[in-house]
C-alpha cells in the first residue's frame, strides 16, 4: 500500500531504472499521438459533416437559383444576381460550391443556356476567384483554375496559360492543353508548337477526345507536326492523319516507314493501313524479316486488311519457327483468308507446336 503522506514522486522517479523511464516516456508519447489522431479523426468527421451540410444548403439554393435564372422568364436577373452575390458568396466554401455547381449545370446544357451560365459566372465575379487561383503558385490550384476556365470558355491572355504548357506536372500540362483546344475557334492544336515536353498517351487520348467533342471548326492539317521535335507529337499526328482520313497526307507518311524510331514506324504502318494505302504492302513486306516483333505484327495487320493469301505467303517464309506470337497471328489471318481450310490449318499448327516442344 502506498503511503501518500510520505510518497515523494521525485525520489520515486530518481530510483526508477532508466529503461522504465524510457518505456514510460514512449508509452505516453505513443498514447498522446494516438489520442491526437483520434481527436483528428473525430474533428475530420465533424468538419466533413458540417461542411457537407453547408454544401448541401448552398447546392439546394443554387439549384433553385440556376433553374430560375435559366428558365424563369419573370426572374429579375440583375437584382437576384446582386442579392446572391451579396448574401451567398461570402465564404470560400460558398464560392467553391457555386463554381462547381455552375460547372455541373454547364456540362449538362448546350447552346444558349450554356452561354447564359458563362455570363452568370462572370456577373457573379467568380472569374476573379479563378484568376486568383491561377496565380496562386501551387500546381494543383492552377490546374483546377485552368480546368474551370476551359470548361466555361473563359478567355484569359494566352501567356497566362502558356506558361503551364511545359510544367513538370502532367496534370497541369494536360489542363493547359485542353484549355487551348476547347477555346480555339481555329488552329486548335497550335499549342503543340510551343510544347517541349513529351505528350503522354493519356494526354493524347484526352486531346483526341476534346478535338472530337468540343472543337467545332475544321480539323487541322496534322501533317504540319510531322517534323516536330517531339516524337510523341509526331506519333500523335501520324495517328490523327488516319483518324481524320487525311488521304492527301499519305505521301508524307510514307518516309516514316523507314524511320529508325520504332514507335513512329509502327504508327505509320498502322495509319497507312487504316487509310488503305495500296502501295503499303509492296513497301513493307520485302524486308519483313529485318523488323522488330512489334513492327512485324503491324505488317501482319496490314496484310490482313489490305492483302490476300498470296501477300501473306510472301512473308510466311520470313518467319522463324520459334516466332510463336507472329505465327499465331499469321495462321489466324490465314484462317480468315481460307475459312474452308480451318481444320487443316489448326491441326497443322498443333502438330508443329508439338514437334517444336
Amino acid at each position, binding site marked *: 500500500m502506498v503511503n501518500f503522506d510520505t510518497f515523494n514522486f521525485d525520489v520515486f522517479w530518481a530510483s526508477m531504472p532508466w529503461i*522504465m523511464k524510457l518505456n514510460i516516456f514512449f508509452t505516453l508519447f505513443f498514447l498522446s499521438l494516438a489520442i491526437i489522431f483520434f481527436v483528428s479523426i473525430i474533428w475530420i468527421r465533424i468538419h466533413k459533416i458540417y461542411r457537407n451540410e453547408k454544401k448541401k444548403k448552398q447546392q439546394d439554393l443554387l439549384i433553385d437559383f440556376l433553374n430560375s435564372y435559366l428558365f424563369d422568364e419573370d426572374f429579375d436577373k440583375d437584382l437576384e444576381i446582386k442579392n446572391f452575390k451579396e448574401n451567398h458568396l461570402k465564404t470560400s466554401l460558398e464560392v467553391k460550391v457555386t463554381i462547381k455547381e455552375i460547372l455541373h449545370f454547364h456540362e449538362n446544357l448546350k447552346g444558349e443556356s450554356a452561354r447564359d451560365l458563362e455570363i452568370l459566372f462572370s456577373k457573379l465575379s467568380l472569374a476573379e476567384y479563378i484568376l486568383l487561383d491561377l496565380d496562386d503558385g501551387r500546381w494543383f490550384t492552377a490546374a483546377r483554375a485552368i*480546368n474551370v476556365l476551359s470548361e466555361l470558355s473563359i478567355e484569359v491572355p494566352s501567356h497566362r496559360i502558356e506558361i503551364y504548357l511545359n510544367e513538370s506536372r*502532367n496534370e497541369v500540362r494536360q489542363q493547359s492543353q485542353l484549355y487551348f483546344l476547347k477555346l480555339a475557334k481555329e488552329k486548335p492544336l497550335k499549342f503543340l508548337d510551343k510544347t517541349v515536353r513529351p505528350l503522354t498517351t493519356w494526354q493524347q487520348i484526352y486531346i483526341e477526345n476534346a478535338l472530337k467533342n468540343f472543337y467545332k471548326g475544321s480539323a487541322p492539317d496534322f501533317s504540319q507536326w510531322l517534323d516536330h521535335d517531339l516524337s510523341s507529337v509526331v506519333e500523335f499526328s501520324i495517328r490523327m492523319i488516319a483518324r481524320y482520313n487525311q488521304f492527301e497526307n499519305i505521301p508524307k507518311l510514307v518516309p516514316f516507314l523507314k524511320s529508325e524510331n520504332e514507335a513512329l514506324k509502327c504508327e505509320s504502318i498502322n495509319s497507312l493501313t487504316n487509310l488503305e494505302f495500296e502501295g503499303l504492302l509492296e513497301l513493307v513486306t520485302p524486308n519483313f524479316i529485318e523488323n522488330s516483333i512489334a513492327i512485324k505484327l503491324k505488317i501482319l495487320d496490314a496484310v490482313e486488311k489490305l492483302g490476300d493469301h498470296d501477300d501473306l505467303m510472301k512473308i510466311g517464309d520470313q518467319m522463324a519457327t520459334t516466332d510463336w506470337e507472329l505465327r499465331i497471328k499469321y495462321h489466324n489471318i490465314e484462317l480468315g483468308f481460307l475459312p474452308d481450310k480451318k481444320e487443316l490449318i489448326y491441326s497443322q499448327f498443333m502438330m508443329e507446336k508439338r514437334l517444336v516442344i
Partner: protein
Amino acid sequence: MSSILSQFTEIASWLFLIYGSIISSGYLFTAIFSLVEIRDYKRRNNFEDDIALLQSLNLPAISILAPAFNEGLNIVENVRSLLTINYPSFEIVIINDGSSDNSMELLFAEYDLEKKDILYHNFVKTKDVKGIYKSKNKAFKNLTVVDKENGGKADALNTGINICQNSVICCIDVDCILENDAMLKLIKPFLNNGNKVIASGGVIRVANSCVIEDGRIIEVKLPNSFVARVQVLEYFRAFLMGRMAWSRVDGLLLISGAFGMFDKQIVIEAGGYNTDTVGEDMELLVRMRRMMQERDEPYTVGFVPDPLCWTEVPQTWKVLQRQRNRWTRGTAETLWMHKKMMFNPKYKILGMLSTPFWFFFEWLAPLIEFIGILFFIILLIMGQISWPVFLTFFFVVYSFAILFSVTALFFEEYSFQQYKKPGYILRLIGTAMLEPIIYHPVIMWSAVMGNFDLLRGKNNWGVMSRAGLSNPVKKQKSK
C-alpha cells in the same frame, strides 16, 4: 552463473529495444511518405473526372484473367458481374483449374459455351489445356472459358496469359467485386507516365457484410465478425500506409494477387507466374522488377489508392491462420529466391531498402516476437522477471500498436472515408484496442508455423473456404 544470466538478459533486452526502435522508425517514415502520397493523389484527381473517357475507343484493350477452382457455388454470378465491367474494350478469360465440382457444367449451361479451335502457344509452360470455349450468344462475346488440368493458381494464370489476346492483362480473383471505373483507374498509370510501366496495383477492401447489388457494392458496412473487422484495419495499414509509401519511393514489391494489371510481354519475358511458390503474386513482381533492373531499362510500377476492388476476407480463425501461414511461406520463398538483390546497390531502392525491409520487418518480425516471448517465459521460470520493467515495456508495445492502427484509420478518414456511419469509427477504435491482445498473437503464431511448414517442405495453399456471394440481386455479404 547469475551474473552471466543477467549479462545475457541485458544484451538481449538491448537487442529487442534496438530492433523495436528501428521497426517503429520504419513505420513512422512509412506513415509520413504515405501521407504525402495520398495528399498528392487527391490533389491530382480532385478537379477532373476521367470517367468521360470510358466512351473513348482509344483506350487499350485489356484481358481480364480470373482463375477458378471449385467455385461452382458462385461462378455464374461472378462471371456475370465481371462481364458488366465498365471499360470500352476487354475480354474475360475464366480459367477453370481442374475443378472437381460442377463449375464447367454451370458455365456451359448459363453461357451457352461451345468448344473453339483457338491457336495459342505456351509462352509460359503450363499443365495441359482440355479445351477453350466461347459463348454462342453474342451478348457474351467477351467471354472465353479455358478448361485445364489442375495446376494451382499460378499455373491457371499462366494458361490465361498464353491464351489471352491483349497486351495488357489484369489478374483478379473471380469473386472480386470491382468498382465501376476500376479498369480505367488501373490502366491510367500505364498511359500517363514518362517511363515504361510494367504493372499497376490497386487497393483491396474488405467486402464482408457490405450490401451488394448486381455485382456492385452499394453500401459499405463494417463486418460483424471481429476477425473480419480487424482485417479492415490491417488492410488500411497495408494499403493506405504501407504500399502508398513504397509507391512514393518506387519500391513496391507486391501487387496483390486479387487485383493487379501487368504488361503481358514483360510478364512473359520474366517467365510468368512461378508455380513453385505459394507467394506467386509477390514473386512475379519482384522477378519482373529484377529483370528490368538487370536490363538497365527505365521502368516503374504504378499504384492507385482508390478503393477499386472488394474481396471477402477469412472470418474464421482457422481459415485466417491458413492464409497467414501461406503468406509467410510466400514471403520467405520470394526473399530466398531473390536473395541476391538484398543490400545489392545494383538494384537501387529494391536492393537497399525494399528487400531488407521485407526481410527484417515482414518476415523476421514475427520470429523475433516469438523469440521474445520464449525469452520472457525462460526468465519467468528462472524468476528473473522485473515486473515493473515488463509492464512498462508491454505498455510501450501496446500503445505503439494502437497508434499504428489509429494512424491508419486517420488516413482512411482523410482520404476516402468509406465507413460513413459514426459508430463504425468507434467500433474500429475498439477493435484496434483488442487487436494486439486477441488477434495479433494468432497472426504471429501463424507466421511462425508458416516458417516451420516451409522448413518441412509444405508448399500447398490449404483449403480457403469462403462464405461466398450467392445472391447477386441483393445480399449482405457473409452476414
